[in-house]
């Protein structure tokens, strides 16, 4: 147990350290680390955790870390994973705040980010495709996916409404199928 908690902290410290661009960019790293490397959670289950973390208040990164930590090692796991994901930010940002003027004017920082932006885009699409293989299984889920993308790109409707709508449609399917069996 103690060993697991240490590993959990280190995993999320690593995730916090190498995520650029916020919570969504964190998803591919969490998947790789928690599902593929550590094998703590199945791919299907982790998508559900991502869904919950986007439906409750707070930063997606913190919510995801807390949920995954809880799933892996209970309440202690939740606290340890959250601390792990937050710590790199607190240390790095405090250093930047001290040397703010010097760093902001460095050309090489901008150069590095012209490259990192490309990797972030690639990783996010890669995560979406991998997730789509598990999540988009028939024409109903296909339509839900396409409608979500269109709504997010072209309107200001909150993601929470979309997630709730997806849940209601899923519940509707449950009662429809139940009705057919009876």
């Amino acid at each position: 147990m103690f060993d697991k908690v240490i590993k959990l902290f280190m995993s999320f410290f690593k995730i916090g350290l190498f995520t650029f661009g916020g919570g969504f960019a964190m998803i591919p790293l969490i998947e790789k680390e928690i599902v593929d490397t550590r094998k703590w959670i199945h791919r299907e289950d982790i998508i559900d955790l991502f869904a919950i973390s986007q439906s409750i208040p707070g930063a997606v990164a913190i919510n995801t870390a807390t949920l995954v930590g809880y799933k892996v090692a209970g309440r202690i796991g939740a606290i340890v994973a959250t601390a792990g994901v937050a710590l790199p930010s607190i240390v790095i940002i405090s250093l930047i705040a001290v040397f703010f003027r010097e760093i902001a004017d460095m050309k090489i920082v901008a150069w590095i980010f012209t490259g990192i932006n490309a990797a972030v885009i690639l990783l996010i699409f890669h995560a979406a495709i991998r997730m789509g293989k598990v999540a988009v299984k028939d024409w109903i889920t296909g339509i839900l996916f396409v409608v979500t993308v269109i709504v997010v790109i072209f309107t200001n409707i909150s993601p929470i409404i979309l997630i709730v709508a997806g849940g209601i449609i899923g519940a509707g399917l449950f009662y429809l199928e139940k009705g057919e069996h009876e």
Partner: protein
Amino acid sequence: MIFLDLFVAFFKIGLFSFGGGYAMIPLISEEIANHGWMNEAQFLQIIGIAEMTPGSIAINAATFIGFQTAGPVGAIVASLGVLLPSLLIILFVSAFFFKYSRHPLMKKIFFGIRPVVTGLIFSAGILIAKEVIFEVRTLIVLGVLLVVIKFVKIHPILLIVLAGCSGIIVNIF
């Protein structure tokens, strides 16, 4: 008392924002204006840095604003404030969720939610791609990375490091 003000302000931000760091920006801006902690130009700079540095945008912004207004202790207090609502809510929600997650109705609900989440992530990719689509240098790096991942299986962290190095190289030439 400045520490208590920082904690309460960021606790509120953590509690009332849905949809992650980007959705938090308007709330942070309002709290900063109300307390007179910094001006609009300083705020924009901080958001830029929060996006550019590794980690969650929410924690990055909280740490930076806390540090600027009240030093290292301020940084820690603000960060704790922004992550505590998540931690408390999830400790409650998870227990409920994991208890019922095997129920057939729950399974169907998530059957409907999963494609939406996939769509949200896909859209996040499109929105970021839209920002850099006219950056020729970023597109060159993107091309290089596509070739690399076509031929070798590469860890995401290594891909980010490789992308950063490529960014420097394209800018030199």
